[in-house]
């Protein structure tokens, strides 16, 4: 089970605080694709993704048990 924590407008858009993927492993790139396909999130390439409190690149692998954070960059100031 891979837990994905949501923040800011992603949380509001999906109406939940986290989502779960029942996979043993997947790459960050695959995670982005599934978010686009299954949750209709657009342009996920601009979301930052951290695995276990460390930012990851698209080729990194998420394993079952990992906690992923989906960080939307915001511009307000």
């Amino acid at each position, binding site marked *: 089970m891979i837990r994905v924590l949501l923040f800011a407008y992603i949380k*509001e858009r999906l109406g939940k605080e986290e989502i779960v993927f029942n996979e043993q492993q997947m790459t960050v790139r695959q995670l982005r694709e599934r978010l686009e396909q299954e949750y209709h999130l657009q342009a996920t390439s601009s979301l930052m993704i951290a695995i276990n409190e460390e930012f990851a690149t698209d080729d990194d692998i998420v394993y079952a048990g990992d906690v992923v954070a989906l960080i939307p960059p915001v511009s307000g100031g």
Partner: protein
Amino acid sequence: MMERYSRQMLFSPIGEKGQRVIQQKHVLIVGAGALGSANADMLARAGVGRLTIVDRDYVDWTNLQRQQLYSEEDADNRWPKAVAAKRRLASVNHDVHVEALVMDAQDESFASLFEQQIDLIIDGTDNFETRFLLNDLAQKYRIPWIYGACVGSYGLSFTIIPEQTPCFRCVMNHLPSYHLTCDNVGIISPAVQMVAAYQTTEALKILVGDVRAIRRSLVIFDVWQNEHRFLQVHKLKNEHCPSCGTDRIYPALRSERAKTSVLCGRDTVQIRHTHPFHITNMMEQMKANGQQVHGNEYLLMTQLEGHRVVLFADGRMLVHGTKDATFARSLYQKYFS
């Protein structure tokens, strides 16, 4: 007079020595909205020697809910934020030399600020284009800068030290699309204050040279949802990054700056003129023509074809109540070109 800083000097990582150092430093604050305002207030009270504050906007009633330097009188008179900020800061700490610049950081003259010594840049901007520009300037001139942003009850901050940390482009390798970043979901002032608290703390660490204490993680929080996390970023440092890598080209410094831009979440289009407006002359002329016009020495405000239009002395025009750049350009050409 050092006595006024006594509580700050009692804080051992600063001390009297650190206080003297702070008083010799020059900080550039880009954007004097909510974050710029909060940082400028704290840094002026802390006794930073020189503050240069750059802002392109004027004080509006909707700013007062979270922009701590401004009063109703500022909104009533539509003072440019940089000017109103300078006035409040002067009443708060006359020791601090504040330079107020009413300009868009996208303007060519902004880059010339970097010909002088700047010790640190605080991000108070409200858009990604300007942050990518700041990032390239910071890398080029090797100046630390402190990214901060917030929306709703959510905020984030990250300290960028050239040659040490990943840069802004390493962390955010895509310019996010407009609709993702400029959705107007509102903002509460504590989210602003929390980001600004992180930015000012990092600023003080950098100014006194407490390198060991600098936060190497990106902090994110949602103060309404009781979330707070530090995320490690070192893995994102990209040696091929065009801003901080081995073959850097500083893309944001090379790109043609757009003459027309839709302001993020603002329902406003900005057009940059090729030369300054003579505000006082124009106001007199408009009044002589029987046109309703308000303003001060920095800007004038009038109605054109049902839209509120603001002209700034530095040659910019804002058209409020539209996101239609073509329409805004047509207004501009009809009346001012």
